[in-house]
């Protein structure tokens, strides 16, 4: 039983919850709305950076940084995704790839604010007001709460008004419009929700890892990971991201002990491709389909 309290396992549990939450936020946009964003790491990184900057540079509580982060990412999401909405399918996705790259360049160059490539280290000052804790259990509770919140939001949307509208827009935008749906507005709403939740994940990450630099938070690998989890678990289902994270995150922990970055990502790429070709509905989706027949 003492193994359960082992720090290593606790860390995996925290990361599992965090990834499930991030992937769940993406699932709203991509799974329900058909807006396959490959640029979530832009929102993640901004959430993390604003939190870190607010705290280390201005001495402001990270909670305020969180609120600022949510506003900024939501505003940015509207600004950048609105021109991209006229692109359909894969071109929308390719367009979203651009933003984390741009953000990383900004973070690397605006050194006054972000300390550039050397990154920001957050001092360990545990307290509730700084959202820094000595015990991993506290982080686990917070991460779990975040994951459950994302799940709850997804469930509320699933087959609710917003969810149905999203699916309609995703399936056939012209038909959706002919039924009175304000398609652009719907897309904006889901993008804003997704961006805000991702920024919260960034805030959590900053106060958990206590260090961030441009490549670690804006990396394309974050976007890959987020997408991978939902696809494996089941795109467009509320449980999908959670199942995907439960399967992949611990696996990632194990694999990282034996393999370095290259081979591990190679395996993920292969798993992603295999899932897309062989089991596109993911675990949850395939189970649901079996149960129906």
């Amino acid at each position, binding site marked *: 039983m003492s193994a359960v309290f082992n720090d290593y396992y606790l860390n995996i549990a925290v990361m599992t919850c965090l990834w499930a939450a991030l992937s769940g936020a993406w699932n709203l946009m991509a799974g329900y709305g*058909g807006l396959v964003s490959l640029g979530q790491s832009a929102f993640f990184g901004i959430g993390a950076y604003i939190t870190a900057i607010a705290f280390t540079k201005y001495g402001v509580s990270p909670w305020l940084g969180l609120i600022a982060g949510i506003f900024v990412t939501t505003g940015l999401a509207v600004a950048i995704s609105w*021109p*991209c909405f006229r692109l359909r399918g*894969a*071109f929308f*996705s390719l367009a979203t*790839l651009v933003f984390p790259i741009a953000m990383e360049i900004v973070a690397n160059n605006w050194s006054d604010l972000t300390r550039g490539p050397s990154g920001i280290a957050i001092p360990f000052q545990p307290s509730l007001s700084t959202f820094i804790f000595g015990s991993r259990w506290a982080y686990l509770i917070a991460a779990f709460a975040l994951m459950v919140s994302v799940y709850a939001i997804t469930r509320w949307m699933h087959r609710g008004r917003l969810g149905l509208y999203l699916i309609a827009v995703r399936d056939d935008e012209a038909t959706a419009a002919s039924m009175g749906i304000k398609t652009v507005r719907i897309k904006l709403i889901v993008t804003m929700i997704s961006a805000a939740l991702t920024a919260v994940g960034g805030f959590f990450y900053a106060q958990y890892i206590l260090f961030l630099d441009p490549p670690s938070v804006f990396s394309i690998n974050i976007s890959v990971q987020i997408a991978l989890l939902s696809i494996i678990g089941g795109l467009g289902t509320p449980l999908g991201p959670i199942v995907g994270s439960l399967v992949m995150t611990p696996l990632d922990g194990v694999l990282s002990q034996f393999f370095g970055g290259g081979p591990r990502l*190679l395996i993920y790429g292969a798993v992603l491709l295999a899932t897309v070709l062989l089991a596109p509905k993911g675990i949850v989706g395939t189970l649901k389909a079996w149960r129906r027949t």
Partner: protein
Amino acid sequence: MLDILPQLLVSGLLIGGVYGLLSIGLTLIFGVLRIVNFAQGEFIMLAMFGAFWLYTLWGIDPYLSILIVTPVVFILGLLVERVVIKPILHAPHAMQIFATFGLSVILQNIALTFWGPDYRSVQTGYSAQSFVVGNVAISASSLYAFVVAFLMAGVLIAFLQFSRDGKALRAMVQNRYAASLMGVNTERLNRLAFGAGVACAAVAGCILTPMFYTFPTAGVDLIITAFVVVVLGGLGSVAGAMVGGLIIGVTQTLTGFYVSVELKDVIALVLFILILLIRPQGLFGRAGMEEVGTK
């Protein structure tokens, strides 16, 4: 300030020609298959490594290795089309995206695993050479690259214009359904288009090798530029890709000198947003092309 302008224009045009070649493959694949090949950059990268190893191990000049690398990549493309692309041609967008995206991750990390993250470079006899015309210095490798890029584009455009398969491909770009009704073997041509598309990437990779560093994630930056070029030139238009490439190349060099070096990297991204806002179908594209799904 202005007397450096000719130099900048020339450098910009030269690199623009190569950007165009990078993008032709992407636009061809999209035009025929209606699939965005997220792994296009990785085919370029693989070709760069191919040229690098051929040079390092056997001293084969990168321009000569075009003759070896291109057929290999072409065949690889045919295989990939069969295994990865064909099954997802009618799948939902998300699945199509992640099929080629997954492929790109796989290829990047194969390179990373086997060859490591180090930046390699190829220094040929002419790598450091340049010609001087008036007060403009033209780097030899850029010039050769430009010439080959346009030759390659010309060959491809001629193929599309005059050959039977080429005409069938153009028909498919305009209207897949009608083309299939006319007896066009869309399955075989899909494979051909994909193979040709990645073969273009291979040629581009080989000629880039003497000019840039070779490393596993080289494809990532290149595909962003290629994408901007494709959107600027117009989706599905090969000529558009070349023109777009020239424009981007010149804009980049001008920005890098007259505005700022950091902005040089970002200018393509800014242009991209502007194109989307002002003229989403690009210069030579048909209105609404950018909204085309695969249905």
